[in-house]
């Protein structure tokens, strides 16, 4: 439950920062409410919920879920449902992929959609375990050209 406490602390910190930023906007009166009123209510609500979560995180071991509906079947739930044996979750892949995405967005306005997306598909396919150089290269070319043709040429969607 330590993880829940840290998350609640993070949410509380976010709420405090948000409320501090909200001080720039006038509250005015209830009859003529200013742009700061609604964010004030929302920020206080998140702070209260974070404090509540912080207080109750430890006492929630026994009753794991209060909802009537299970989470969408992703990750562990899906593994359990399928009964398939999977490799243990490792944060290395997602962190690497996140870094690749950050670099992608940074270079997107400079090199344009085609070049950036070719590189993105190639690198992400390799990171996901597509072996060799040819298969990722063909996949990258196929996906990028198809999206360029469909969205830019056919549908007129402007891309950088």
């Amino acid at each position, binding site marked *: 439950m330590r*993880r829940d406490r840290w*998350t609640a602390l993070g*949410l509380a910190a976010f709420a405090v920062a948000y409320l501090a*930023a909200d001080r720039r906007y006038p509250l005015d*009166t*209830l*009859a003529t*409410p*200013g*742009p700061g009123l*609604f*964010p004030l209510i929302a*920020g206080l*609500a*998140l702070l209260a*919920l*974070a404090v509540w*979560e912080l207080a*109750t995180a430890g006492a929630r071991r026994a009753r794991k*879920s*209060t*909802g*009537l*509906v*299970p*989470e*969408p*079947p*992703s*990750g562990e739930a*899906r593994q359990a*449902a399928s009964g*398939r*044996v*999977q490799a243990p979750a*490792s*944060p290395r*892949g*997602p962190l690497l*992929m*996140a870094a690749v*995405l*950050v670099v*992608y*967005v940074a270079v*997107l306005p400079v090199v344009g959609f085609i070049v950036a*997306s070719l590189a993105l*598909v190639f690198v*992400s*396919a390799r990171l*996901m375990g*597509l072996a060799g150089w040819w298969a990722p290269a063909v996949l*990258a070319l196929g*996906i*990028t050209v198809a*999206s360029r043709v469909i*969205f830019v040429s056919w*549908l007129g*969607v*402007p891309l950088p």
Partner: protein
Amino acid sequence: MSDLFVALSGPNLFACFLGTVLGTIVGVLPGLGPAGAMALVLPLTIKLGPTAGLIMLAGIYYGAMYGGSTTSILVNVPGEAASVVTTIDGYRMARRGRAGAALAIAAIASFVAGTFSVVALQLSAPLVARAALAFGPAEYFAFALLGVVVLANLTGGSRAKSLAMVVLGVMLSTVGMDPLGGTVRFTLDVGGAEAGFSFIAVTAGLFGVAEVLTTMASPESVVAAARVKFRELYPSRTELRRALPAMLRGTVLGFVVGLVPGPAATLASFVSYGVERKVSRYRHELGTGAIEGVAGPEAANNAAAGGGMIPLLSLGLPFTPSTAVLLSGMLLMSVTPGPFLLRDHPQVFWGVIGSFYVGNVMLLLLNLPLVGVFARVATIPPRYLMPGVLVLCVVAAYSDNNNVFDVWVLVAAGIVGYFMRALDYSPAPLVLGLVLGPLLERSLLQALTIGRGNVRELWASAPAAVMLAAAVLVLFFPVVRRAVRPFRAA
């Protein structure tokens, strides 16, 4: 009513076909889900125009409900949350060699429920819209508040976590232009942020990019799907006779649950399974491969998808991520859903409803003969699919406002979404908070202004008072129940 036949025009039929095929594929593939897929194809649908575009989006929405059952039955992997319960009996039927019958019953149940829910939607949506004309800001505020509170209670996991995500979504919705005064807020002087966080970028990030990152965390092995021959797709007379009552119960139940804010389709399938365990003549067989365990939940989740359209079309209030994307699509196409939709855009209103009839027939025709093809789609390794999902996410995010800021939002939402999944926070409440935030703010401030600062204006009318009381009750009921329990036990 004659506008109902708009759905039969060539372009609209094609849009419906494309939507239902895409929806079935999305339902078959675990992970992405209908909301994420709808967000990804928004740029395409906008180019099709309001009627065809919305028909295609709606096709993806209910097509996913059909497709989700295929992999649940054949490979024990639910394509989306609403089909989780189908794995229990569906997969066991497949292992007993009755995969074809289970698939056929799932498709027929989906068709029956889908058609029933469209008839009910067609009859009730205009009535609700007419009643909603009497709604003022206070009533809208009360209804939206009740919606998010109920949603937080029904979403899986901790209630406090779900509520926190709703509020976080509402807070994110305050970035950019204030809906009444036009003041630019919380942009930190970042270029492109004045328009606020793009709903499409956030949804594509939370559902699409986060799914890619999650897949990278635990690369899955490819599974083999059972092959089903066309001649095996006939359920026996006994199976049909046993499935029918469960199908009808699931249909009515699903439609009613569909009106409740929250993950209605998933909830409906679980409630239906629970009802079958109580009332079915063959309840002792449930869990061992009983046809009722497929027919009931599959009918319920499809009926719920239709029921969920009523608050969207009649009131302009989406209570599921999928209907939130539909709302977003409507607004991008300059169509405002709500009480005036029928008056201002009758072709869109009736065209979409008409397409539900056509779509249900298409899905039945598609799902029965092509079931083997769809099942094989589920076995395509993620390393071929996920890079394509990333590129589609980027196109969807960028094309919303044609700026790179939204692509940054997409990536940030993806990373946040990945950690949210790891920490048991559901993304659905955040998405709905983001959509309902401006409505909550606008209606609250308008009600206060109308009441000249008198807070009692918020519950001055009977409907608003009832809805606010219900929201308070739903919010505090579990806390009070927990506090009272020790005294009752003593």
